[in-house]
């Protein structure tokens, strides 16, 4: 019974206004990550054109990590949305 109650609490429903507020917090985080990826891409391209490929792999991994974070945040938004539509 307690486990069921805590599960229900973990999947609490948010109103549209609350979801909008959560999204307002997620958006700047995503923007910062994308700007970081842009910086990584320009720095890697600069190094590549100069003949230095030693930074290409670490930069690609870092950029991929940023993408995973972004995709995770977007997935959370979709879940939030699904819960909202389902009505709890």
């Amino acid at each position: 019974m307690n486990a069921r109650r805590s599960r229900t609490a973990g999947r609490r429903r948010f109103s549209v206004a609350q979801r909008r507020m959560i999204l307002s917090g997620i958006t700047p985080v995503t923007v910062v990550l994308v700007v970081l990826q842009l910086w990584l891409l320009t720095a890697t391209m600069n190094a590549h054109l100069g003949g230095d490929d030693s930074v290409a792999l670490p930069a690609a991994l870092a950029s991929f990590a940023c993408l995973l974070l972004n995709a995770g945040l977007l997935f959370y938004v979709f879940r939030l949305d699904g819960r909202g539509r389902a009505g709890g």
Partner: protein
Amino acid sequence: MTPQVPGRERPADELTVAPDGRPLADQPRWRQDFPIDVVQDEYVARREFVKFLVLTSSAFVAGQIWILGRGLLRRPPSLPELEIARLDELAVGGAVGFDYPVAGKPKLLVRLGESEFVAYEGRCTHLSCPVIPQPEKGRFYCPCHSGSFDIATGKPIAGPPRRPLQRVELAVRDGRVFATGLVEATL
């Protein structure tokens, strides 16, 4: 303001008001006929923006993978050997210019000691002005924007240049100096 869909009830906290905050009955006729859920509309717009950002993020990762692939597939070109100077023609502290590996790619050979030679790109990495060898000051000097490069390593030591000069690999045989290849680096 939110129209009720038959068979689907929405909670009271999702029913939004018009931007001016007045009840539906006080709204103009067009808004009563075509009510817009402002909060929901803003929410959807922000969600679409986040989706666009994630798409952009994917494009950046694709770019990184493209650069990585190009780097892995790139093989250093085999460059021809070129005789630059004879040892007895170049005094210590002297310099000679040459084109390598093809015409129009100026390089500079500098004799730093009896058996110590360095050769670098002859153009500044900032805006491609010709650099002047100054062995007595231990640098290559770019007069355009007062940029300087360390003569021993080619690394930028002053001014706007951020990348080192491209180094030429040298070989000394039979009293002559040969260019045998190029070393590129950005750090």
